[in-house]
């Protein structure tokens, strides 16, 4: 009780002094709550679509956000069709990557929701057929031989295709039938009249195809160029003969159109109305500019970059669309 008697007065003095000095410190230590630089772009961008184009979009987005820290981009690997259907056409994403051109059905679906897709070519992919490093005998495949290897109920052994090859069963490794790469290969190589082999090891993860092919001298597989580009020593790319001699897949042969029929363009579709927003427009521009960037597209991701002329023509397409929305 005794302490209580004189305690509070002392406390109060201390307290007032404390409040006073804290107040002074606060006044001295104030700063303006001004907003960030008004000229900087900010906003969210969502990208959906093909798992094939995904690594490219990821790399471009990463690069873009270094320049514009206030823009937030998220990239989803949903598959080309799933992206159109579930994300892009309902308006949930502004960009949809595709490893094939948009279908009429998808265009109609987008149209119903008032989304107008603008097609932009962002790179070229070269499907690569690979064999085991020890399989020296497999030095070239004609398109017809490739078709036989991958046809349903086709020959079971290599010797059944070509007498010079070993009489060993073919071990096949390829993308799962749900992937865009599978669709593209089926279209480009097998055509309408042949079914794709069922007797193969399907996977959506291309590195597993590499591992599978590494496991056997009599194995073969196919996948997107980037996987070969990133693991060039683990397996050997088989040159393809489309009637004009054997052509090995490379950035050069795909770019100048020699590597047929396995090279294909990769697209991104941007919703035209979304371009009215400046950060979306700027990202679209950046995406196209980077599509000609050798370091980013080829070295980092492993696709074939656009030529100078292609970049220019894509930019013109984009600027025309921009003109209309602004």
């Amino acid at each position, binding site marked *: 009780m005794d*302490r*209580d008697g004189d*305690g*509070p007065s*002392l*406390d109060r003095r*201390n*307290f007032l002094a*404390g409040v006073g000095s804290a107040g002074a*410190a*606060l006044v001295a*230590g*104030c*700063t*303006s*709550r*001004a907003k960030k630089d008004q000229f900087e772009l900010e906003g*969210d961008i*969502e990208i959906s679509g093909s798992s094939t184009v*995904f*690594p490219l979009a*990821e*790399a471009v*987005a*990463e690069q873009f*956000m270094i320049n514009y820290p206030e823009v*937030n*981009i*998220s*990239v*989803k*690997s*949903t598959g080309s069709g799933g992206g159109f259907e*579930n*994300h892009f056409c309902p308006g*949930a994403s502004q960009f949809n990557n595709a490893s094939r051109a948009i279908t009429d059905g998808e265009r109609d679906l987008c149209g119903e929701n008032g989304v107008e897709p603008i097609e932009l070519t962002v790179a070229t992919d070269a499907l690569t057929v690979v064999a085991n490093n020890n399989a020296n005998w497999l030095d070239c495949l004609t398109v017809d031989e490739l078709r036989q290897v991958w046809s349903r109920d086709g020959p079971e052994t290599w010797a059944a295709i070509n007498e010079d090859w070993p009489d060993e069963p073919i071990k096949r490794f390829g993308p799962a039938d749900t992937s865009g790469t599978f669709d593209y290969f089926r279209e480009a190589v097998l055509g309408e009249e042949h079914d794709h082999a069922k007797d193969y090891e399907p996977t*959506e*993860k*291309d*590195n597993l195809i590499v591992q599978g092919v590494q496991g056997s001298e009599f194995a073969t597989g196919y996948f997107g160029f*980037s*996987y070969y580009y*990133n*693991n060039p020593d683990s397996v050997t790319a088989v040159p393809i003969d489309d009637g004009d001699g054997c052509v090995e897949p490379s950035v050069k042969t795909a770019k100048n159109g020699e590597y047929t029929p396995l090279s294909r363009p990769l697209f991104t579709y941007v919703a035209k109305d979304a371009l009215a927003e400046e950060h979306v427009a700027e990202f679209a521009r950046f995406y196209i500019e980077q599509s000609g960037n050798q370091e980013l597209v080829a070295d*980092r*991701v492993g696709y074939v970059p656009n030529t100078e002329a292609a970049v220019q023509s894509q930019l013109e397409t984009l600027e025309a669309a921009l003109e209309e929305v602004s």
Partner: protein
Amino acid sequence: MSEHNPDTAFAGVSRLRGRIFGSLAKAASWLGVVVLAWLLFMVVVDAFGLTAASTDWYLGALVGFGAPLATYSAYLYWKRPDLRWIAVRATVIPPAGLIFAGAIFVLFLVFEPFFWFLYYTIAVLPAVAVYGHFATRDDTRAPLAAGFVGVVGLVIGYFVEPLILIMPLPWIMLVWVLVVPAGALIAYRQAPEDRQQQVTILGTGVAGGVLASYLGPALIGVTPDTAVILYAATLLPVAWYNGAVLANDRSAWPGLLGPVVALGAIGGGIVLGGLVGTTGPEPVLDWQFLTSAPSTLPANAGLFPAIVGSVFIIAIVAIVSFVVGVGAAIYLEEYAPQTGVGGTITRIIRVNIANLAGVPSVVYGLLGLGLFVNLIGMGLGIVLVAGLTLSLLILPIVIISAQEAIRSVPEEVREASYGMGATRWQTIREVVLPRAVPGVLTGTILALSRAIGETAPLLMIGAATTVFRPPTGFASQVSAMPLQVFYWSFHQKSAFRELIAPAGVVTLLVVMLSMNVLAIYLRNRYEQQA
């Protein structure tokens, strides 16, 4: 026991059989643990690049690390066994404080410090003051009044916020928001009666915070804000514990050397290993990994947005599953009728909860997709959908464990409460819940540690493959640690699969194990008390 009747012809046989059976059971019990230990060893080796280090590095590091630790342990063991636990606690507090500082840092990174400052000052603080005012007078209206004041503060803050053009420097706001309440808490706990000493403790604590904001940048090169956070979360608890130990027993000071010795051992290991060894380890899991965004280049890859994403998701799951789970458990244990039509409904609910606990998580993912995305129309893969979906997933586990905890409260205390004229809700709030809380918390934390590792439901609700920035709100696109691990383990580049993925796995496991340890610690404490 069979020794008592050695004349049984089969005694020898059955003893042997019994011994074999016993050893078999023992071996089986450790099988899973040993396998897990092996796997953890492998993944830690990969995450920290330990294979890159040479043998002489290990020798050097072992000596540098082991010598101080062994000396100190031997001293404690032979000379001062009474200080064992003080040493352990003193050693655990600083790293725990650092982790806590990291959590606060993430929060302030995501939400502007100014908002904390504003709402703390005009909503939280008045609410606490009002609560204290009523509670000291034993007035049951305390929560109601505090809630009212808090809500009024929030509303005012919402309208006032755009009008404010200047604000205090961030570190001053942090001192106000973090150091002052922490200091007040310590002062209150250390000297509940002594006003004079309370003021001294609070004043010293705040002065230390101000000092830290100046010394931090000068000494270790952090920003003043970070220095204040580190001070509040790490230095202050350490000072508190050490002060309390010394105030209790001055001769206990050798126990407080624990963290110094641990730091010296780690430093000694690194220094000596570096001096002696030809090559050191090449850790992937380092500060850079924890604070960077995912990248297409392995050297730049990080887990930061996924860590923050997991924190956001778990925050929602914790709140929703705790409130709904405990509420449902209270209903089932305290209110639910046991007979008649009501009894049938109760039985249906009980059986249904048991069944829900067994539904595969991937099916919950489809529920989240169908309910939250397609029916209600929330966005694909946003924080809120992820959090709500995982809440539904762990709700049955939370309910069941909360039911057990509530059931373990003896019936007598309830009857005593009713006997005093308390209503059912008063009894639950004042008598049942306080006793059941440790058990409820243990169950909830264990359930949350399951939620933090769930992947399949997130894949189903359309979570993004790559998110470069941490979420900024509940409608942001989100990634989570297990998702990122999943994508990395399939990455096209081998560096991601072989180096980055293990680093992600180890981070995820550290978080999950910490939660488990916390839950086990809580339970043991509780069991000892009970």
